């Protein structure tokens, strides 16, 4: 048996896993409508591919991947698209996101699909394309596109494949159930991935020792292969990717890095089964195994649920007792989040719907002051000092938060769990992380704005200088001309030409009547302009800003000068 390492910290919350393992994985009737969020993974959103009223078949793509880091979603059953709009989705914010709503026709008719006959004959890139097209994202929680994880990297060869069968969160048994009942699919999935990764040196299934039956179910399949099963003592949070890597290999993923930096890839049970289905059966990811459990549910059981099934549909088939439910949680009690509505759909990362009774998970008690007892520091699996982080989070001291490695916090909730003062520590960290990220974005924006402002200033200054220079040049020319006209022959310089031309013009309009008429016209125009300007000034004084007023009064003044000037010329002429 391989050696295992022990992570620091960790907690042992009551497991509560047995109640949902009394029955095998169940199937639910197809719900009337399915709401499929378009964005169920980390990465950019993808382009929508259907229109309202269009009939779709089970497994048909609803969106098309346009970039390397986005994934398509598929219709989970056959029916008609009845809406493409923003709907509430499973997200801690309770906000809405774009979704496609499908009214199922009940026939559950598959689109034509075919798997790869022999995946060993396919190149890794072809298989990765199949995985991408099937819309497979990590089903453990984060939803990272699996194909990207498995893509060959230039600088680092992958020599270890880690299968995360830990499932350390209390209550959740989806992976446990999958291993017991779909062990063959799982092993085939592993084989496919091994082929893609060009047969890594070590393939290891990391599993907590509270799942002996799953281990027993897997054993027959791995006897002839090089796959290892490594059980280790149950402790929360061993299932964090970084924790699992340390437990199995004794190596740590560098801060800010990825497992691939160590030449490792870590995949979840559900993901591997989905990969098997995509490659061998040609089925895209349209369903997953989800645990429905908790004291407020009459039936606690795992289900193979279609993606997009409303939570309310799951709950009604499980004798859900709303009065007895303290809160509705998606995910486990440690890292999950409360749902505000039962209308939100199941997505690719929904491992559990937990409806605990009032006595199981009571409402939050008010937080007391931190007495720095240090229990949180002992529970922290990444050796942070949660009490110090809390201190700085309250003070909003972002520099110190980063110096105390806030961004290495995996938000496992072990600190909040042990806190005797009931302080919601993880929430403080999440909020601080969000604020720091936002501050960083704001900083980039501000720097950008500053750069543009400075550039504009420079540009205006340059334009000004150029104008100055031109004016200067003209002045020089005239001066030169004047100087030359005094010494040289008349008619030789530019100034003389202009003067001559002006002379010609004057002689042309020599008739005083003509000149008078012209000045009169000018006077009229100037007077009307003056009236206009005065009107604007009145308007500005009644309801405009100070700046407007000054502009208007200046224009009135200039108009008045123009009138005076014209009047003066006219008088001069008539005199």
């Amino acid at each position, binding site marked *: 048996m391989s050696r295992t390492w022990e992570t620091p910290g960790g907690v042992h919350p009551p497991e509560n896993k047995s109640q949902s393992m009394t029955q095998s994985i169940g199937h639910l009737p197809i719900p009337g409508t399915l709401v499929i969020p378009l964005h169920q993974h980390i990465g950019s959103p993808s382009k929508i591919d259907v229109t309202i009223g269009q009939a779709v078949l089970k497994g048909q793509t609803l969106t098309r991947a346009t970039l390397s880091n986005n994934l398509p979603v598929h219709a989970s059953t056959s029916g008609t698209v009845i809406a493409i709009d923003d709907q509430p989705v499973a997200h801690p*914010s309770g906000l809405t996101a774009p979704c496609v709503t499908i009214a199922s026709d009940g026939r559950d008719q598959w689109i034509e699909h075919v798997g790869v006959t022999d995946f060993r004959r396919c190149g890794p890139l072809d298989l990765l394309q199949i995985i991408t097209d099937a819309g497979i994202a990590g089903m453990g929680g984060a939803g990272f596109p699996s194909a990207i994880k498995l893509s060959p990297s230039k600088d680092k060869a992958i020599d270890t494949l880690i299968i995360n069968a830990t499932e350390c969160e209390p209550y959740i048994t989806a992976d446990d159930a999958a291993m017991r009942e779909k062990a063959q699919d799982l092993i085939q999935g592993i084989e496919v991935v091994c082929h893609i990764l060009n047969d890594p040196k070590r393939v290891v299934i990391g599993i907590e020792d509270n799942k002996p039956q799953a281990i027993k179910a897997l054993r027959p399949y791995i006897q002839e292969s090089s796959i290892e099963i490594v059980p280790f003592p149950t402790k929360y949070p061993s299932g964090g990717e970084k924790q699992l890597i340390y437990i199995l290999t004794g190596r740590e993923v560098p801060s800010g890095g990825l497992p691939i930096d160590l030449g490792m890839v870590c995949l979840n049970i559900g993901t591997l089964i989905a990969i098997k289905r995509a490659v061998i059966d040609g089925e895209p990811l349209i369903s997953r195994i989800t645990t429905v459990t908790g004291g407020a549910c009459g039936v606690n059981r795992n289900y193979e649920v279609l993606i997009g099934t409303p939570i309310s549909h799951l709950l009604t088939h499980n004798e859900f007792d709303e009065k007895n439910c303290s809160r509705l949680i998606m995910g486990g009690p440690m890292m999950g989040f409360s749902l505000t509505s039962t209308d939100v759909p199941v997505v690719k990362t929904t491992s559990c719907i937990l409806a605990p009774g009032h006595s199981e998970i009571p409402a939050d008690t008010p937080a007391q*002051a931190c007495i720095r007892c240090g229990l949180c520091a002992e529970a922290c699996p990444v050796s942070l000092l949660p009490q110090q982080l809390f201190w700085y989070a309250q003070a909003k001291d972002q520099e110190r938060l980063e110096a105390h490695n806030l961004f290495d916090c995996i938000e496992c909730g072990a600190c909040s769990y042990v806190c005797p003062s009931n302080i919601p520590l993880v929430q403080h960290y999440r909020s601080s992380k969000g604020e720091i990220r936002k501050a960083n974005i704001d900083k980039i*924006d*501000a720097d*950008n704005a500053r750069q543009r402002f400075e550039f504009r200033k420079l540009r205006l200054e340059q334009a000004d200088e150029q104008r100055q220079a031109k004016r200067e040049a003209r002045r020089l020319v005239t001066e030169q001309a004047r100087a030359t006209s005094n010494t040289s022959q008349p008619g030789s310089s530019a100034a003389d030409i202009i003067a001559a031309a002006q002379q010609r013009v004057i002689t042309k309009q020599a008739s005083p009547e003509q000149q008078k008429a012209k000045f009169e016209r000018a006077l009229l125009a100037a007077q009307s302009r003056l009236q206009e300007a005065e009107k604007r000034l009145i308007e500005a004084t009644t309801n405009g800003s100070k700046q407007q007023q000054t502009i208007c009064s200046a224009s009135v003044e200039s108009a008045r000068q123009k009138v005076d000037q014209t009047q003066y010329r006219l008088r001069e002429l008539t005199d």
Partner: protein
Amino acid sequence: MIDSIAQQPMLAALIALVSLGMVFGALLGFAAEKFKVQGDPIVEQIDNLLPQTQCGQCGFPGCRPYAQSIADGDAINKCPPGGQNTINSIANLLDVPAPALDEEHGEEEEIKTIAYIREDECIGCTKCIQACPVDAILGAAKLMHTVIVSECTGCDLCVEPCPVDCIDMLPVVQGIVQWHWPNPPTTIDLIATSKMSSQEDAA
């Protein structure tokens, strides 16, 4: 020699103090040279903290002149777009108490707004283009203008010059992507104080 000095306490004290002074003076001088802090000038640092909207609400033509003015001793609470956060960080930098925002220069807005031009009403006068401090408006004379959303700082300097009032300041959409976890409900002692302040507001 040493004996004669020791017999005259005045002289001994004088020599001791002067030599001590010289030694420590030399030490300090050396340290000042050796460990000289090559930091940004203070104006740069203040400018870095300002939000760079270049809106001029502080009464200065842009953030940099205001930073200069703060460095020369102006009040630090004249920047509404930065709000209390900016005031706090400048106060922290300068090691002075953080005052509340000076309402004379405007109020802090909760949600960031950005200019949008109602494009079918735009007459193409280029006045807003000239007003924009960060060149975030695109267009040419007698052609429709539009705001480059990612570059707009929300300073609203373009709203006023528009002769046909076709520029709106609209709040930035807060979608699921921008969302981040809010602060958890405050602890009980903070509830008591906020109760107190709300009573004061009511009174």
